[in-house]
């Protein structure tokens, strides 16, 4: 067990009946370093990364020296002379291996765990010093040099970025702008989720792809490009379309999610999941020459997407990029702003849009920041897992939406003359092929009472198809 702690270190209990030797080590803050009189010390670290590396060292020590137990803790924050900066305890059947293991652990911590210390000298000066020996190779340091000189980033900030895990859902217009900047800034683990192939009509705005990439999967092609851009990071492709079934396990691996999708069903799916899993979601949506940007962060008072739109709007109500058109630079601007929000979240700098909605019109640079607040009755923010986009709609709305109508009843239920123009596809014969044909065509499913159709519409949505159910079924007409 390796812990980074803010409070004075308490030795951890070590009770093991098989232990013949128990060795502890305490590293203290001393009053001199390199000939300079030191007044106090300040330690800083990115805890998840430091703890992961520390844990690794303890595991190694256990297996190399056959230890029964190994524990350590390291302080962060301001320490006075004489305070304990690091504590290590190991228990072993024999004293010799316990001594050796303890020395191994402190040596490796000094070498490998990314912790920085700021020495405050008696003469009033101070200086940040890496405690670890060149954790970051020179070439990699050089890569980030122009941003590590920024006072709010530095080596500590760079280590935070290296430890960050960011998932970009949708490697289209927004994703193709956000991804290169995330990679270049040194976000250490980037996931790319997209099931679509590159198409020629993407290229005016999805500028990470070129003419020869047509037909290639976007997630795989984008990942390849990012690895070439920055060899010091890890990139993972998820070459499928995100849906209800795969979203949870995909999102779970990451700390922050960028929504670069282009439909309400997926945007609300990500919203609900990120609120539930407490992962910040950086969301952008576009229309022709203008867009909206916001951050959903359950730690803030700004609420989520459903605090603004309690029911997910149905797809098709405002048109997609394909239907309404989009200025090529628009996703470029908004994707870069999404990357900016991610970097601010990781570094803890600036004002993140977690309690506001930013709108920006590229035609005239008219921008507006609208304050958002959490709605007390929001089902998603309250943790009601039954919150789902509206499925049941009346016939009038279906007509307005020009939905493809499918009667899923069995032949024996059919009226002699259909009550309205529709496809008759009994539930049992609703094969994969039909579902595929519907992939980009919103549909209304109809049954006798609205029960079977609602259930099937839910299943369709899980597969990424925009489906509705006639509320009350044929009986309601």
């Amino acid at each position, binding site marked *: 067990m390796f812990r980074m702690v803010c409070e004075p270190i308490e030795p951890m209990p070590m009770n093991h009946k098989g232990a013949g030797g128990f060795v502890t080590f305490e590293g203290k803050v001393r009053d001199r370093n390199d000939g300079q009189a030191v007044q106090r010390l300040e330690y800083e670290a990115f805890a998840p990364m430091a703890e992961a590396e520390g844990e690794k060292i303890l595991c190694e020590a256990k297996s190399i020296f056959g230890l029964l137990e190994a524990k350590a803790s390291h302080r962060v924050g301001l320490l006075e002379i004489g305070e304990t900066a690091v504590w290590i305890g190991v228990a072993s059947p024999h004293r010799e291996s316990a001594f050796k293991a303890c020395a191994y652990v402190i040596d490796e911590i000094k070498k490998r765990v990314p912790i920085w210390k700021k020495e405050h000298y008696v003469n009033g000066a101070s200086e940040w010093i890496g405690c670890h020996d060149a954790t970051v190779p020179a070439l990699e340091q050089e890569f980030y040099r122009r941003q590590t000189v920024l006072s709010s980033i530095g080596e500590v900030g760079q280590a935070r970025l290296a430890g960050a895990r960011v998932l970009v859902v949708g490697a289209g217009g927004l994703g193709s702008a956000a991804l290169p900047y995330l990679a270049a800034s040194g976000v250490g683990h980037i996931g790319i989720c997209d099931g679509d192939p590159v198409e020629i009509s993407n290229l005016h705005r999805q500028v990470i792809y070129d003419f020869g990439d047509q037909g290639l999967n976007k997630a795989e092609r984008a990942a390849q490009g990012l690895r070439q851009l920055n060899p010091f990071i890890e990139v993972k492709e998820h070459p499928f379309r995100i849906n209800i079934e795969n979203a949870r396990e995909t999102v779970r691996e990451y700390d922050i999610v960028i929504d670069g999708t282009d439909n309400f069903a997926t945007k609300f799916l990500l919203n609900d999941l990120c609120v539930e899993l407490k992962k910040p979601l950086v969301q952008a949506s576009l*229309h022709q020459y*203008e867009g909206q940007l916001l951050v959903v962060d359950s730690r803030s008072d700004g609420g989520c997407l459903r605090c603004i739109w309690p029911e997910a709007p149905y*797809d098709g109500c405002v048109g997609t990029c394909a239907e309404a058109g989009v200025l090529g630079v628009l996703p470029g601007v908004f994707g870069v702003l999404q990357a900016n929000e991610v970097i601010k979240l990781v570094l803890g700098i600036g004002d993140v849009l977690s309690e506001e909605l930013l709108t920006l019109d590229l035609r005239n640079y008219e921008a*507006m920041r*609208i304050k958002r607040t959490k709605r007390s009755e929001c089902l998603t923010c309250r943790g009601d897992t039954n919150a789902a986009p509206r499925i049941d709609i009346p016939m009038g709305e279906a007509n307005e939406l020009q939905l493809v109508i499918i009667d899923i009843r069995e032949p024996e239920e059919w009226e002699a003359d259909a009550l309205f123009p529709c496809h008759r596809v009994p539930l049992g014969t609703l094969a994969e092929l039909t579902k595929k044909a519907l992939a980009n065509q919103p549909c209304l499913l109809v049954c006798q009472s609205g029960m079977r159709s609602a259930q099937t519409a839910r299943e369709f949505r899980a597969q990424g198809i925009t489906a509705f159910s006639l509320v009350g079924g044929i009986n309601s007409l």
Partner: protein
Amino acid sequence: MGTYPATSAVQMERMIITVSYFAILREQRGLSRETLETSACTYGELYLELKSAHGFTLTENLVKVANRGEFVEMSSCFGEGAEVVFIPPVAGG
């Protein structure tokens, strides 16, 4: 505009406000911002008035409204000089 006679309970006041439109509403209205006079009391009434005048396709429940940089409820009332913004959902990416 003439003055309206007072009704039994409510004085029908006409107010001058500015209204801004985003995305598909901007398109359907054909402009970004206008100053107008209305007798509507709530944002919802105002939206319905504008919807029938300009043929907006979005129903009231799909549109959000803000006044002076803060989201407000469609059912609440606004006052003279309100700076109303109607924001439709936007899906593109």
